[in-house]
């Protein structure tokens, strides 16, 4: 009796309520659980270990403001899939951070507070075809630090996780990393080089090179003397640019810098044409470039850096020659995607790098080190004499014999570095020097050195076009972003190295694309031919018409002429029609395929089901009738 009472209670409204609360509670308990299977082929929704490491380090809330225009006409259709994947990734970040990352999705409608907020955060509006602007950007804030991704370009989709992780890591670290620059060139501007100023006298105080001012947005950039004094310990990245005539003592300083974990970026050059101060007019009135290397260090790392220039006929372009005529210069390399490592984070999005007269980094890396080429020539390349390459490119082309070798133009060298100075400091025991830390013989952990076979690639002439009126520098190529990528990678969070580039979410209809390009190839000639024919006919017609007007009304067109006029007009109409049809044919195959598939998908299965249903019904009826 008692149990039936209990049952009545349980199965009453109260019971329903109880079950409801229990189930909601169960869902709540499991809501922080992150037990899941990522069944996508490329593990699209699984963050890389580097990103997870960064997110795990968060100790307080970080606000992510995701500015995205919403609504039918305010975001290009093509970007909607991409927006979805950004959403997903942000959700991943939040979940992985244990909800410490707070996401505010903001729709910057025109003339709204939200739009002002986007502008204030530095998120940039992008033009729509109708003249309005749409927003797709992210600001990450952990007061007082803020990192902004002004526009999430879909071209950088693969790097989205890396970019976001970098932004989070930027707002986590309190002080800006210090980047040192060591160079005999006036890279840091005139003010940093007073001796030179005095010598030059009349020259105005020059400004730093554009790449320095760009780096100053994110880093403290500091000049480092090339005199052999130890590199300051707070410098995280050291850029050595065209170290011509470098002393062993200075190389020792670099050696020790690398061994204690500093990140070194080297730009050596067999022919640096930007080294103006060194250039003294010779009797012929010509300026020659100078060369640089790090002989001691390169030897220890297993590099050979010949004083010759890489000429590549696939990467050359025509440049203004001495007499102003365009002329191909095989030593001036315009490196495109086929000479750029697409798998490395620093170069994956780089497509066009200019290297004026670069050298080749040859040899095999020393034991314990691994060299990964970042930039390389094609096989249509050859090592040539620098001066000839600069002054007589025609001769280089005449004598060109492709070596069939792919030369490394820039290399990422990683591993456990050993000293290049096993006998200690080459400047001897300097008793006056303060007793510093003992000389290191070997690095305690793995490190990375980036070596570029060219220094001119940093010079303003070959990186930006400066609009003097508006004081804006427009990038000419990807040189600046490449350098920025490398510095960021080197200066940034060590975990960022592990943040990989993601696979693209997009998987297009390859079959349709192939058909379209096939059709385009097939019809291209025909369209060109018809276009030409149309122009010819136009010409003939206008000739007759001119004749007609020239002899105004005095002479009526002869019957033959009239006939010709009629013929041409008819032909013209015919050609126009054909051209229209041909253009339509371009998509015909695709359209008919799409139509076929559409109808098969919509109708085939229902028809089949109906047939089966009717057949079964008939069979059943017969069986019934037979009984």
């Amino acid at each position: 009796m008692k149990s039936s009472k209990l049952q009545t209670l349980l199965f009453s409204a109260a019971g329903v309520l109880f079950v409801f609360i229990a189930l909601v509670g169960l869902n709540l308990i499991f809501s922080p659980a992150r037990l899941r299977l990522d069944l996508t082929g490329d593990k699209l929704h699984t963050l890389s270990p580097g990103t997870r490491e960064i997110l795990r380090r968060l100790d307080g809330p970080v606000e992510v403001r995701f500015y995205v225009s919403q609504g039918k006409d305010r975001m290009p259709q093509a970007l909607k899939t991409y927006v979805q994947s950004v959403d997903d990734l942000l959700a991943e970040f939040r979940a992985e951070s244990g909800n410490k990352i707070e996401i505010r999705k903001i729709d910057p409608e025109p003339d709204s507070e939200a739009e002002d907020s986007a502008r204030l955060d530095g998120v940039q509006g992008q033009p729509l075809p109708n003249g309005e602007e749409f927003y797709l950007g992210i600001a990450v804030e952990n007061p007082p630090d803020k990192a902004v991704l002004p526009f999430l370009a879909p071209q950088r989709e693969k790097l989205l996780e890396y970019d976001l992780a970098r932004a989070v890591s930027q707002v986590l670290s309190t002080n800006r990393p210090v980047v040192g620059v060591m160079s005999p060139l006036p890279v840091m501007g005139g003010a940093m080089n007073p001796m030179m100023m005095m010598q030059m006298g009349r020259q105005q105080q020059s400004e730093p090179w554009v790449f320095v001012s760009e780096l100053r947005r994110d880093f403290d950039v500091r000049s480092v003397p090339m005199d052999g004094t130890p590199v300051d310990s707070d410098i995280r990245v050291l850029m050595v640019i065209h170290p011509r005539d470098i002393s062993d003592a200075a190389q020792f300083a670099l050696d020790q810098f690398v061994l204690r974990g500093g990140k070194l970026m080297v730009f050596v050059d067999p022919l640096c044409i930007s080294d103006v101060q060194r250039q003294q007019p010779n009797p012929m009135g010509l300026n020659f470039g100078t060369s640089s290397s790090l002989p001691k260090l390169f030897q220890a790392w297993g590099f050979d850096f010949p004083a010759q220039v890489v000429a590549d006929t696939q990467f050359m372009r025509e440049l203004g020659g001495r007499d102003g005529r365009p002329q191909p210069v095989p030593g001036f390399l315009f490196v495109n995607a086929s000479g750029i490592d697409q798998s490395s984070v620093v170069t994956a999005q780089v497509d066009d790098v200019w290297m004026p007269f670069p050298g080749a980094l040859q040899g095999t890396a020393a034991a314990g080190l691994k060299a990964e080429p970042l930039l390389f020539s094609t096989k249509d390349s050859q090592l040539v004499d620098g001066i000839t390459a600069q002054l007589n490119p025609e001769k280089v082309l005449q004598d060109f014999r492709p070596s069939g070798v792919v030369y490394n133009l820039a290399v990422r060298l990683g591993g456990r570095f050993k000293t290049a100075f096993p006998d200690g400091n080459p400047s001897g025991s300097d008793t006056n020097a303060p007793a510093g830390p003992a000389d290191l013989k070997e690095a305690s952990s793995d490190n990375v050195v980036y070596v570029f076979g060219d220094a001119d690639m940093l010079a303003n002439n070959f990186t930006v076009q400066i609009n003097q009126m508006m004081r804006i520098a427009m990038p000419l190529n990807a040189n600046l972003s490449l350098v920025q990528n490398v510095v960021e990678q080197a200066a940034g969070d060590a975990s960022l190295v592990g943040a990989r580039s993601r696979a693209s979410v997009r998987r297009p209809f390859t079959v349709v694309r192939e058909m379209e390009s096939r059709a385009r190839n097939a019809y291209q000639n025909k369209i060109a031919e018809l276009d030409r024919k149309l122009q010819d006919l136009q010409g003939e017609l206008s000739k007759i018409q001119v004749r007609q007007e020239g002899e105004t009304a005095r002479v009526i067109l002869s019957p033959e002429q009239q006939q010709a006029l009629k013929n041409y007009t008819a032909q013209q109409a015919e050609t126009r029609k054909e051209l229209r049809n041909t253009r339509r044919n371009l998509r015909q195959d695709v359209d008919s395929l799409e139509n076929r598939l559409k109808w098969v998908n919509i109708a085939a299965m229902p028809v089949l089901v109906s047939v089966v249903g009717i057949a079964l019904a008939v069979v059943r009826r017969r069986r019934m009738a037979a009984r």
Partner: protein
Amino acid sequence: MSESLRNVWTIAKRELVGYFNSPVAYVFIVIFLLLNGFFTFMLGNYFLRGEANLNAFLMWHPWLYLFLVPAAGMRLWAEERRVGTLELLLTMPIAAWQAILGKFVACWAFIALALFLTFPVVITTMYLGDPDVGMMWTGYLGSVLLAGAYLSVTVMTSAMTRNQVISFILSVVICFFLILAGWEPVTDLMVRWAPEWLVSTVASFSVMPHFAGFQRGVVDIRDLLFFGSVITFCLFATSVVLRGLRAA
């Protein structure tokens, strides 16, 4: 235990065979397939998207099921009540929950079969491009679970009334709420006047965010738990209603 499972299976089989003895099942499947094809290829701009995935197909399911699933399930108990076979069924030597589960499983399997017959869209996608197969599997899994959640709601409303039309309408209304609570345009509107926690709590009752994970290729234990909870709750409520009827 195996005895009760066998009872569930007996009920389910009897029910499922019953479907195919009438033309209604075929009509339902044909309409289901026609609507799916039409929405995917006409309204979903499958070709215009040019993406080798099932988004144009799956995105309609919460809306298609809104009407199709109640239509399939509205008669489950209402019909028994109207014809008066309910008492008969309940006096059979099986527990009420076994009958409820059996009928539910039968109807669910029937909808799953209809869904299975949409496989030409998978073949088409694989022919046109190189889709992510894992993502397609999870998409279908999510769709089946979504249909299960709707169906459990319909089973519940069906037990509440002897009128199939009322059962259908009630079920559509409840399922509609399950969509809207987490549908982005609605939550976006709510954000303007309701506090964040309220919006997210309400949204967590919706099928939409839980279905989204499956569409992306992720099987999350929380999404499984959600659909499981909806089904459990509705079937439990059904048993309460039926018990009340028997007591009356």
